[in-house]
């Protein structure tokens, strides 16, 4: 069962048919182990090397600087833990952007909890764009790693990576960027942007799930995350996900060719979404920066209603979207990204993320715009809140829960 309209391209993307077809060859025809000496293996090794060169080329790197991984998350873990453990002699301080994906935040928290790291989380203003001065100010003589994502997965905001990396370089601090949402969607050149470590993930640009890559600048030492048979020149052991690597490289090649088209096409559709929503629905706000933003990303907050319900109603109408509400995130808390740009929990619960992709059409946008007002209205009809009860709705201090009458019960905090 699939949705008729897919507006959640930041969550994942379909594999392009030509990519899938090429991958299939590496299951059926070229299935050798690249570590094997004979033809069946060596011919595959050559293809993996070619894929590595393609990926390197796509971001202005050298093939030796590319390490394939089992996901964007693994690439992030490898970068954060690897850099921290390798540089621990110099210091134990990490500067982490507050809006990072859990794939970056959780490794940081792990290092704080278990391996003596001190982590400073720096936050942006309400547009989500980080002021590079905030990084400069957070630096101590113990700082060994700065990690700032290139583009945010929830609000699409693009960070001033070049400015931040310059600060890192001036202080001789390793700079990592999670570019999982950026690579394949906007132009990325590791030299121009001054990046030491960069993570990407194939399924965000029409490649397969379960394969990513980490760019590791020449000369950078990184502590290994996965030890074993010394594949990836000892940096990431395990028999190579050959088909996945081929798929990643091919998808990236195609995605990069389409960047200009996508920029034009997606921004145009996205602007149509934004205008349509803001013009036709009351009590809604547009979240994030209007300019420094991924072309296909639109993010809103609707008052008085809750995001999971919104997503489910749109789903029933055949439209796939997502929300940063607590319920839809399953983490029992609303998106830390939305809270991190100063939104209240209530506003965050009412969020809706729409992310367009290369095959999105104007017709789809129009259908979405036709469906959405009715859904919002229906949910608002059902809501105990409205403009008249604004105060009760916005009041974050008062606890409306019966838990007040039963002070030994604190389930309300989790509800």
């Amino acid at each position: 069962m699939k949705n008729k309209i897919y507006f959640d391209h930041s969550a994942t993307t379909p594999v392009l048919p030509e990519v899938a077809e090429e991958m299939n060859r590496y299951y059926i025809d070229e299935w050798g182990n690249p570590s094997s000496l004979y033809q069946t293996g060596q011919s595959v090794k050559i293809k993996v090397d070619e894929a590595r060169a393609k990926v390197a080329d796509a971001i202005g790197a050298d093939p030796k600087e590319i390490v394939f991984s089992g996901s964007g998350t693994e690439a992030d873990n490898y970068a954060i833990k690897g850099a921290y453990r390798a540089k621990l002699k110099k210091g134990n301080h990490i500067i982490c952007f507050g809006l990072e994906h859990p794939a970056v935040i959780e490794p940081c928290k792990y290092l704080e909890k278990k391996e003596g790291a001190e982590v400073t989380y720096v936050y942006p203003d309400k547009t989500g764009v980080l002021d590079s001065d905030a990084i400069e100010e957070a630096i101590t003589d113990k700082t060994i790693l700065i990690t700032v994502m290139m583009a945010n997965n929830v609000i699409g905001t693009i960070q001033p990576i070049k400015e931040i990396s310059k600060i890192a370089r001036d202080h001789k601090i390793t700079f990592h960027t999670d570019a999982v949402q950026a690579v394949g969607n906007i132009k990325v050149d590791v030299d121009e942007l001054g990046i030491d470590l960069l993570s990407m993930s194939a399924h965000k640009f029409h490649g397969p799930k379960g394969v990513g890559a980490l760019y590791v600048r020449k000369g950078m030492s990184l502590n290994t995350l996965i030890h074993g048979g010394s594949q990836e020149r000892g940096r990431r052991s395990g028999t190579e996900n050959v088909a996945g690597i081929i798929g990643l490289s091919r998808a990236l090649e195609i995605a990069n060719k389409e960047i200009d088209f996508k920029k034009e096409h997606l921004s145009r559709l996205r602007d149509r979404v934004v205008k349509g929503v803001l013009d036709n629905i009351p009590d809604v706000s547009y979240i994030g920066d209007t300019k420094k933003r991924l072309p296909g990303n639109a993010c809103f907050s609707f008052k008085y209603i809750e995001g999971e319900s919104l997503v489910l109603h749109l789903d029933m109408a055949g439209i796939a979207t997502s929300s940063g509400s607590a319920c839809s995130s399953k983490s029992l808390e609303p998106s830390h990204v939305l809270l991190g740009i100063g939104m209240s929990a209530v506003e965050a619960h009412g969020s809706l993320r729409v992310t367009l992709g290369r095959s999105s059409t104007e017709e789809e946008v129009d259908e979405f715009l036709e469906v959405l007002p009715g859904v919002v209205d229906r949910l608002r009809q059902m809501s105990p809140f409205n403009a008249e009860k604004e105060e009760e709705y916005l009041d974050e201090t008062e606890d409306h829960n019966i838990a007040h009458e039963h002070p030994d019960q604190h389930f309300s905090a989790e509800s």
Partner: protein
Amino acid sequence: MYSEKVMDHFSNPRNVGEIEDADGVGQVGNPVCGDVMKLTIKVEKDQILEAKFKTFGCGAAVATSSIITEIVKGKSIDEALEISNAAIAEALDGLPPQKMHCSNLAADALHLAVDDYLVKNGMEPRANKPSHEEEDHEEEQID
């Protein structure tokens, strides 16, 4: 994620609204936490004739609100006080683990509404503390 029954109640919620001259009103949850239910009941001779709800919340919150308005209809005050959140979840053919004690407040709202009715009619409140089973959360997330 949700059972068919949950989706049925979510997509066609029964008894949405507020009873104007309600005999009992119960509101639980907190918008900060993402779930608020307001239940209004009509009571006659200690029997619940009608219940209506308004809910701000996720699929589970809406479905539990909806089904309790059906379940409670015709029940006595005593019977209503016996209904637990767990029973509501069961009536919906189960809820995902992470929804068990977050979005399943309908019985609590009902008990509050009943207490409200009792107090308004000069009786002692009788609802027990809400009982929430501890379930392990299946943590997941969006990306």
